[in-house]
């Protein structure tokens, strides 16, 4: 009885906290479906209409589509998708080497990886964009994807989880004659699915939020990614806030849906049943 009550309290806590986090987003979603004038009018003085549109309208959505948001969204999805797939491969490989393969200079290499994500991207974006210009990479998909691939954070998180896999598994595989790649692919990757999702999120969100870099390396509006399209709603003479809210809401939903779908992979690890250093 006490346990049921305890679990009930916890469940209630979970709901309350989630709703608190959700509240500002409810405001965002409501604002996507009403005129910006109504949005601002209902925020002060406060009325319950702040969260529920008085005059529901799809104008913002059609205004977003008219401004080419679907193309921008497609561009964002393509760039982010490629970055996640290629980035996971590249980062997981590097993490594997840094966590499992013994070699001289491992610490030093890891330090370089750590240093690389300390440097804020904005600080190097302008000189880097000039280099890309010199290499003839402006207005290319490659230019948009490349900076997202070398992601020290993704390597770091995967390395931490690879360190948690018992080395006895690798040793046994070695004795069976398996090479490093086999061990990587067949042992380590399947055992660290939640970490891969985490790394995938890091890679994905880097591109999903990318704003400055695309502006610097692309000049054609067909290549705009979604955050750039949103920024262009802030013109010199007019600002279409309704469109901003609608586009922001769409951008927010997509990663959330993906994460929701991937929740089933967050299962308790079966690998660590056994020795753990």
């Amino acid at each position: 009885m006490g346990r049921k009550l305890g679990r009930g309290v916890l469940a209630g806590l979970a709901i309350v906290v989630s709703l608190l986090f959700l509240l500002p987003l409810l405001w965002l979603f409501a604002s996507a479906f009403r005129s910006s004038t109504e949005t601002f009018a209902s925020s002060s003085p406060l009325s319950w209409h702040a969260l529920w549109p008085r005059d529901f309208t799809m104008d913002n959505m059609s205004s977003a589509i008219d401004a080419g948001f679907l193309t921008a969204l497609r561009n964002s999805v393509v760039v982010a998708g490629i970055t996640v797939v290629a980035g996971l491969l590249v980062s997981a490989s590097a993490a594997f080497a840094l966590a499992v393969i013994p070699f001289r200079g491992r610490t030093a290499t890891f330090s370089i990886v750590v240093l690389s994500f300390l440097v804020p991207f904005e600080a190097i974006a302008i000189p880097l964009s000039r280099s890309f210009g010199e290499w003839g990479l402006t207005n290319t998909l490659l230019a948009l994807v490349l900076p997202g691939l070398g992601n020290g954070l993704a390597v770091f998180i995967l390395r931490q989880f690879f360190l948690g896999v018992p080395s006895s598994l690798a040793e046994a595989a070695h004795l069976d004659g398996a090479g490093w790649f086999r061990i990587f692919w067949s042992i380590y990757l399947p055992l660290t699915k939640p970490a891969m999702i985490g790394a995938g999120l890091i890679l994905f969100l880097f591109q999903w939020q990318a704003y400055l870099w695309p502006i610097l390396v692309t000049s054609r509006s067909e290549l705009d990614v979604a955050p750039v399209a949103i920024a262009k709603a802030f013109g010199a003479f007019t600002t279409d806030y309704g469109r901003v809210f609608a586009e922001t809401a769409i951008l927010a939903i997509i990663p959330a849906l993906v994460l929701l779908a991937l929740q089933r992979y967050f299962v308790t690890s079966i690998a660590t049943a056994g020795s753990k250093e």
Partner: protein
Amino acid sequence: MSTMSSTGPRARTRRHRNALAAVAFLAPTLALIIVLRIMPTATAAGDAMRSGLPGSLAPPEFVGLEVFGRLFQSESFWQSVRQTLVFNLLVNPLQILIALLLAVLLTRNLPASGLWRTLIFLPSAVPLAGSTIIWGIGLRPEGPVNGLLDLAGMTTQPCFTSPDQVIASMIILASWIGVGYWMVFLIAGLKDISPVYYEAACIDGAGPLRTFFSITLPMLRRPLLFVLVADTVANFVLFAPVHILTGGGPEKQSNFLMYDIYNRGYQLSDPYTSSAELLVLLALMIVIVIVQFRLLGSSDAGE
């Protein structure tokens, strides 16, 4: 690797093969990181020793440490450093503590945990500019949050418009965004702990708090190190909300180093002072990250 010897010709071949394998696994990442991050950073570092008119197309002249000299004599620079440290010393422990508590809460096999996790994560999926606008409007002296406070009978809080509350408001904004994100990694870490340990603790009669501190936390050390370091970095380089909402104010209370770096580099086209400040910021971060690795990263081979 206790069953294998570490000397002799077979060991050497093995080491050689390991080194080759390591190179193969690391090559793409290292190439990308060096070309796309390290080298431009070195260029930026070089800029810190040059000076010229902002935005000028003419090549700058080399001035050695003069830029740093001027920077270190500037009162507003030191104020930036102070404000940056204050913000970070407050926001990092807060975010990680809340993320950890939420991660623990949402791994108790409660119904619909997947949904709650996604809802709490949702803010970090919103484009940063969008979140900033939402909270900018939300925390207005006459906005919805103050409207709620008003209903509860509390006085209006100036939030972003007050020099005394701007850092707290930034912390709220950054935490709303960040907590869910870091929580996901901690959940992955919690799920990685074999239930065998919990069963053993249960058999030994350990209560929930004891279990948490003796088993959960130590086993969470590796993901926790990641979250600690990554969160620290993320908060040190945060600038977009300052740029959009406060311009470093009121009264320079939110003039964080990264915002100043961005403002000087991008708005004022002065890459020289901007690079010098960047190097200071990097130095601060490196020191703190080293301390964090010392605290949490100790027993792994090669750390």
